[in-house]
């Protein structure tokens, strides 16, 4: 484990119904980096962040986060330790107001209500949802629900923000705003970004890990990934990368 890594996975493997979905995946994310995790559909990206965040338990391997071995920790404890997680399939409190959705994320670490409200406002402004603060979350458009999901991640003020395909379903202008948001966060927060949109990866990521069929295929800076014949080959069959 590198000295400065915030997150370190070693030899992670998991099977579903006897089928190996991830085998021996190791990778490190240094503090402050924006790391993209890419790979074709079904490569195991969501499963991998599930293992990192504790939604799933590995059959073998370890996860270290912020200097602790969190391999056997339940997910809520990892979140308290400083992970923020956003879902690929939008998971918000549909019947509650936008404000309450974000407040639930902020309240866990902010004791005073005035501070909670400040964090909520800050997070909503950052994703551009400030004007919807009193709307019922389920009434928002799909794209806005995706942004709310991101706001809930931000409001947790995590050390590591895990974003599972945040730009899916966003309009072009929202995607531009998202890139700007990641630039804002750079250095402040360590980001692990699962992303299919190659434009976003190229512009936002400091470093890229490519996953294919449950294994790490390639790691490098965005331009190297773009140049890699290996990666291009992986994406050729049933690829949906826009690069």
């Amino acid at each position, binding site marked *: 484990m590198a000295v400065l890594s915030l997150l370190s996975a070693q030899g992670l493997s998991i099977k579903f119904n006897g089928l190996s979905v991830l085998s021996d995946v190791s990778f490190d994310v240094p503090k402050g980096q924006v790391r993209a995790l890419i790979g074709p559909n079904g490569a195991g990206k969501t499963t991998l962040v599930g293992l990192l965040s504790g939604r799933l338990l590995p059959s073998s391997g370890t996860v270290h986060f912020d200097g602790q071995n969190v391999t056997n920790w339940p997910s809520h404890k990892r979140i308290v330790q400083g992970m923020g997680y956003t879902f690929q399939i939008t998971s918000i409190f549909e019947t509650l107001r936008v404000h309450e959705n974000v407040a639930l994320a902020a309240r866990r*670490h902010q004791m005073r209500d005035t501070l909670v409200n400040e964090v909520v406002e800050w997070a909503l402004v950052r994703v551009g949802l400030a004007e919807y603060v009193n709307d019922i979350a389920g009434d928002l458009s799909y794209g806005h629900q995706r942004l709310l999901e991101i706001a809930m991640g931000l409001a947790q003020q995590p050390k590591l923000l895990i974003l599972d395909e945040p730009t899916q379903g966003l309009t072009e202008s929202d995607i531009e705003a998202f890139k700007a948001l990641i630039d804002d966060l750079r250095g402040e927060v360590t980001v692990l970004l699962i992303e299919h949109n190659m434009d976003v990866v190229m512009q936002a990521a400091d470093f890229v890990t490519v996953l294919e069929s449950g294994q790490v295929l390639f790691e490098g800076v965005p331009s190297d990934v773009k140049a890699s014949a290996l990666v291009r080959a992986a994406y050729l069959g049933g690829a949906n990368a826009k690069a």
Partner: protein
Amino acid sequence: MMSDSKKDCFAHGGVLLFLFALQFFLPAYHHGNMARIMVLASYAIGYNLLFGYTGLLSLGHAIFFAAGLYGSGLAISQFGFSVGVALVIGVAAGCVLSAVIGALALRTEGVAFMIVTLMFAQAGYLTVLYFGEFTRGDEGFVLAHADRVLWGVSLSDQTSKYFSAFSLFCVSLIMCLALVRSRFGKVLIAIRENEERTQMLGYNVVWYKFCTIILSGSISALAGATYALLFGYVGASFASVEYSIYPLLWVLLGGAGTVIGPLVGMIFMFYLIDLSSGVTTAYMLVAGVVLVFLAVFAPQGVMGEVRSRIWKWLS
């Protein structure tokens, strides 16, 4: 313009004030009914915390009501304790029991949770029958008037009965209101709406559920204990499956996840059966038809509809 939070407090305060004033106007028959209704509505408030706010459907809450009922009843009939001590014993019995059952039942979810709670309650019912020597089984036992005196006031007296039931209801309602408006209560609502999300916001969902089962069980037991002390009768029917279903019905009718819903549902159901049984022997049929209508036209229960249509700020 009053803030929503203030309106909410005033509305619930108004209900309590109304219930307090009611005793001076009600004829004797309804006076007695209301005392009973307020005690059972407190039981329903306890149930609602778990079902309406946290989204956990228990089919075995009768065991907590019965724990309070028998805990305090037996404390008096078998050990000759005073009313105050008996009340504490009743609540403590419900508290311990709900902790044990909660710890075991929370290993399951959904339908399995319903079945496990149902089984525990059935085991409780059979336990009551098994120890018939002390509990007198189905027949039950009566607490003498002389034993039901608190601070020199006889609880069997009409006025003190109403006032005691009202006090219990106040405590339950205010506790519930304070809880659901607190940070803790907001997490419960979050669990009900999206458990996975709540967990991934860093809340220990199982712990929250466990605490709520204990709270819910203890309030149910408090209501059970008060029932024994006010009405002087302790019988196995209160431990039966009907008494696990009733609070579910009352809460659904009145509005799950509303503070005042359990009272509204209880009053509604009580008088529906009371009035229809005066008109026809097929009163359960009448009640059934009305319930079906409510389920179709007011699926959120009376207060649930009121909240979603009129008073959006209602807790």
